[in-house]
């Protein structure tokens, strides 16, 4: 006989598991990447300068509202931060990521979280996750501004051109568009909510749309991380160019 085990009574203390693998390795990249991005984005949002250079505007500051502080004395980024932040915070993928990595609820599958009380998403504040579709609507508005910024980045003092920054902003807005289009709420609104695609008005085109969005939705996690990294790097690039640390290279 080996160790005494009573499976029904096992668990309850944090980290207790019968798993043989290093389960905590799964959450380390999430803590590092999400935590690092949160720290960097907070610093940049409060910095309030080095957010534009030539035709480039940092995605953290777009749309740019009251940059000359006529009525808003703090950083303009703070006026708009809530929109994209709300979209990511209530996103079904990020919920999984941060419930596991930051709330340890649970830290990994089959690993005890050691908590007595649990209310899931039935009570404040997590019941607000149900408003994800409203943040999606807001995200679409932001996306329109970011596409405008990406197009503007092709125009240097009235002439058409392409710089490294142009490509950085273009790639960023493409990844953000893929992330937004792969949203679970959009998939539902576009057609998933129908019980019968072929009985409903506009059912067949909605079915096609739902199918296409479902294909994107399967890569939602990939787009979530790729767009998070790209938005951070796009801001960093604009900042470095704006403060003179590096020079933007004109490709043509």
């Amino acid at each position, binding site marked *: *006989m*080996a*160790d*005494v*085990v*009573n*499976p*029904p*009574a*096992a*668990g309850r203390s944090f980290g207790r*598991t*019968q*798993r*043989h693998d290093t389960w905590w390795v799964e959450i380390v990249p999430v803590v590092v990447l999400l935590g690092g991005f949160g720290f960097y984005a907070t610093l940049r949002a409060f910095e309030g300068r080095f957010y534009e250079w030539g035709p480039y505007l940092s995605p953290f500051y777009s749309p740019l509202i009251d940059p000359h502080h006529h009525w808003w004395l703090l950083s303009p980024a703070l006026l708009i931060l809530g929109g994209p932040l709300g979209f990511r915070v209530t996103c*079904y993928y990020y*919920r*999984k990521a941060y*419930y*596991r990595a930051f709330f340890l*609820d*649970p830290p990994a*599958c*089959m690993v*005890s*979280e050691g*908590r007595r009380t*649990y*209310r*899931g*998403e*039935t009570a404040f504040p*997590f*019941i607000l996750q*149900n*408003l*994800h*579709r409203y943040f999606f609507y807001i995200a679409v508005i932001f996306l329109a501004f970011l596409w405008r910024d990406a197009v503007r980045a092709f125009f240097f003092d009235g002439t058409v051109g392409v710089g490294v920054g142009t490509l950085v902003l273009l790639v960023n807005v493409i990844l953000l568009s893929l992330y937004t289009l792969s949203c*679970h*709420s959009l*998939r*539902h609104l576009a057609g*998933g*909510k129908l*019980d*019968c*695609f*072929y*009985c409903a008005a506009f059912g067949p085109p909605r*079915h096609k749309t739902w199918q296409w969005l479902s294909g994107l*939705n*399967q890569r939602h996690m990939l787009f979530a991380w790729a767009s998070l990294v790209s938005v951070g790097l796009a801001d960093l690039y604009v900042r470095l160019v704006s403060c003179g640390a590096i020079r933007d290279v004109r490709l043509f």
Partner: protein
Amino acid sequence: MREATLRVFRGETTGGKTADYRVPVAPGMVVLDALHYIQGHLAPDLAVRWNCKAGKCGSCSAEVNGRPRLTCKTRMDSLPLDKPVTVLPMKAFPLIKDLVTDVSWNFRINKRIPPFQPRPDAEWKIDQRDVDRVQEFRKCIECFLCQNVCHVLREHDKKEEFAGPRFFVRVAGLEMHPMDGASRAGLLRKELGIGLCNITKCCTEVCPEEIRITDNAIIPLKERVVDEFYDPLLMLVRKIRGAR
């Protein structure tokens, strides 16, 4: 012949211990084969529930090296055999004996779900593309591995308030059925407690039928609950339509 040590739980409701058994490993052998070897040669009183040994009956669920698995689909050569392979019963359900647990709670939950109710005006003709969406949910073999891994049941024991992933899959199959006329959104929110799910996707990770439980069943159902109870615009639209 190569040998492996299986560390198997032995005990009943009052408690128990793991016991080590040396088992010869043959090519293509699965954990259930090893358990049968133990039954046949070393411990004839070992209790194991199994039926088809083909991954379709959902009977032989257990925790192999701390992971919920069908023992008939877990090959011995996929496990590190330099250490003992632990085989424990599913933790989320009451133990009966050794590796056998009492899963009857699931059947009681199942009875709470209103069955298929055809729409009164339904034309009994279904487009294949409508069938395709719900077909995935019919693949469930009721192994209850998803129920076992779900921390709401396993860790917090919310069996009175929460139905678990298996039954969200069942409800999804009914709610998205093109001929069904019943709405189960209220049931999902209250009696089945879908709000307790914090979508950590463990159920999807363990499903032997590879049903995308979270993305295709739970999240779409959560969105339907939002339609009904949390979306102020839709609530207003319904009110205006109702007033006409």
